[in-house]
């Protein structure tokens, strides 16, 4: 798992790469707490674009950060959520607690196709 952070306006964006499971839960929790403690005036935006797998150990970290930040009057949002991760978030009911921006269904397939149009 690797973590890259950047400041964007009122947000601390943290991009995570790797699986969020029992192995990565504690390092992720410690890294996020350290960053959110350093930037106390920012909300947390967790970018999961490069996260292909999340189980309940990973969800525990996300929900734990939500509780911690909420107690400080701050929020956590998730972006780049893949369909497979979305299914797990929905089953746990996290999508009703935390603001989530999904990646559209099938976008992973489209991304790998050759580009035929360059203008958008």
């Amino acid at each position, binding site marked *: 798992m690797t973590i890259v952070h950047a400041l964007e306006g009122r947000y601390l964006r943290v991009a995570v790469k790797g*699986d969020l*499971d*029992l*192995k990565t*839960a504690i390092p992720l*929790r410690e890294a996020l707490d350290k960053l959110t403690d350093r930037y106390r005036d920012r909300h947390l935006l967790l970018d999961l674009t490069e996260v292909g*797998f999340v*189980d*309940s*150990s990973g*969800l*525990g*970290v996300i*929900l*734990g950060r939500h*509780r911690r930040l909420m107690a400080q009057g701050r929020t956590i949002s998730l972006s780049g959520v893949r*369909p*497979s991760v979305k*299914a*797990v978030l929905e*089953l*746990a009911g996290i999508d009703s607690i935390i603001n989530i921006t999904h990646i559209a269904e099938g976008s992973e397939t489209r991304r790998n196709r050759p580009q035929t149009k360059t203008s958008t």
Partner: protein
Amino acid sequence: MNRVQLRFLSQADNVGLARLMAAGLAGQGNFTLPDIEEIKVAVSEAVSNAIIHGYDNRPDGWVEVVMELDAQGLTVVVEDWGVGIEDVAQAREPAFSDDPERLGLGFVFMESFMHGLEVASTFGKGTRVRMRRLITEISHDAQ
């Protein structure tokens, strides 16, 4: 029919190993990619439970995963020889966790993502989780 067996120490690194094996074997059957993703979550939860609860995060216990693929589906058995579960019915309830950083949803995920879950545990001796995912008609059509 195909059958694989994996035995490993109760270390967090091995959760991903068990998931990879499950994905590889399920990939030999007529499962869709979303099916395989859900099987991976269920296997991850069962193995994580064995490490966290069965062995109380001790890194030197054995966990065994046996998977069997047949024409109708995939059967996964995850076994540990750890502390066991005193009250299986209570452990299967949502949010049964004394750690605020854990959701207590492991069994809920296994039940939701698989078509059948059996938990056999002897307190002080260990736990055996057996779950089965069926290949559905939709999966067949996708092939």
